[in-house]
């Protein structure tokens, strides 16, 4: 189809140029057309492959689910012990949540609408950035996941609210 279109285009150009007796210029014109098409395809392919794969929303979702389940399983520890060690209890690496970090989370535990525990770790600036994307297109901003769950523990109503954000671009490394 492309060859057919190019042949048709060439015939038209020859016809037009023949009127002026300048058929020789055709080769230059033709190479220009090829360069434009080739350049367009190369640019398109380069843009497509340089975009990368963004898995931040998946990772934020995994982090929030993990925290939600972990906090729920450790309610005894959390309510009795003020120094609840979330990194050890939830199998999270302390180092990756130290600044500068690609991760952030904030966990609230409410008992009958009263805040009984709040834990936040990672890059705190993500919390504001998480919701910017709702209004504007922000490509390099963190992707976030919000989860909450209500349950009964020791005959009292509890609610866990988790916000998790991830802004990891990954990167090429030299070894």
């Amino acid at each position: 189809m492309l060859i057919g279109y190019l042949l048709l285009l060439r015939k038209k150009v020859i016809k037009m140029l023949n009127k002026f007796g300048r058929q020789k210029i055709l080769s230059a014109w033709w190479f220009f057309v090829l360069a434009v098409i080739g350049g367009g395809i190369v640019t398109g392919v380069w843009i497509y492959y340089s975009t990368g794969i963004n898995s931040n929303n998946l990772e934020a979702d995994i982090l929030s689910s993990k925290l939600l389940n972990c906090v729920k399983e450790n309610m005894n520890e959390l309510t009795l012990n003020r120094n609840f060690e979330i990194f050890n209890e939830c199998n999270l690496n302390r180092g990756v949540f130290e600044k500068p970090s690609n991760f952030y989370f904030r966990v609230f535990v409410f008992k009958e609408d009263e805040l009984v525990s709040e834990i936040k770790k990672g890059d705190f600036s993500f919390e504001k950035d998480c919701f910017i994307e709702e209004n504007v297109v922000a490509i390099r901003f963190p992707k976030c996941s919000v989860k909450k769950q209500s349950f009964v523990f020791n005959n009292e109503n509890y609610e866990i609210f988790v916000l998790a954000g991830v802004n990891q671009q990954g990167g090429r490394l030299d070894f």
Partner: protein
Amino acid sequence: MNKKADTLILEQVIFIILNIIFIASLMYFVYDVGNRGFIYEEGYAKQIALMIDSAEPGTAILVDISKAIDIAMKNKNNLENIISLDKKNNRVLVALGKNRGYGYQYFSDYDINLKLDANWLSIVIEEKSD
């Protein structure tokens, strides 16, 4: 008259051959870029990091990495080192070419063992022993 017609036919033949060469090289370029290592490096690194993060301790995962092995063999890379873990920075490293690779962080704190077996990568995730 015949000489002019011959020239015209020759011109058309050369024109068509040049077009075929041009389109074939473009198609080869698109195919070649799609099969280059850097795309697979990123894909495998992110896939493995997400698997580690979503796994529970005591999980064993098998990942088909036949495409990564093909590319690494093409690049004459040592197969033992194509997928590794940077445990200090909690990062999955995938290197299918020479001296360069892709790194992606995971947030979980487990004891992780990677083992390559033919076209499969086995990931064994255990609770961290202090």
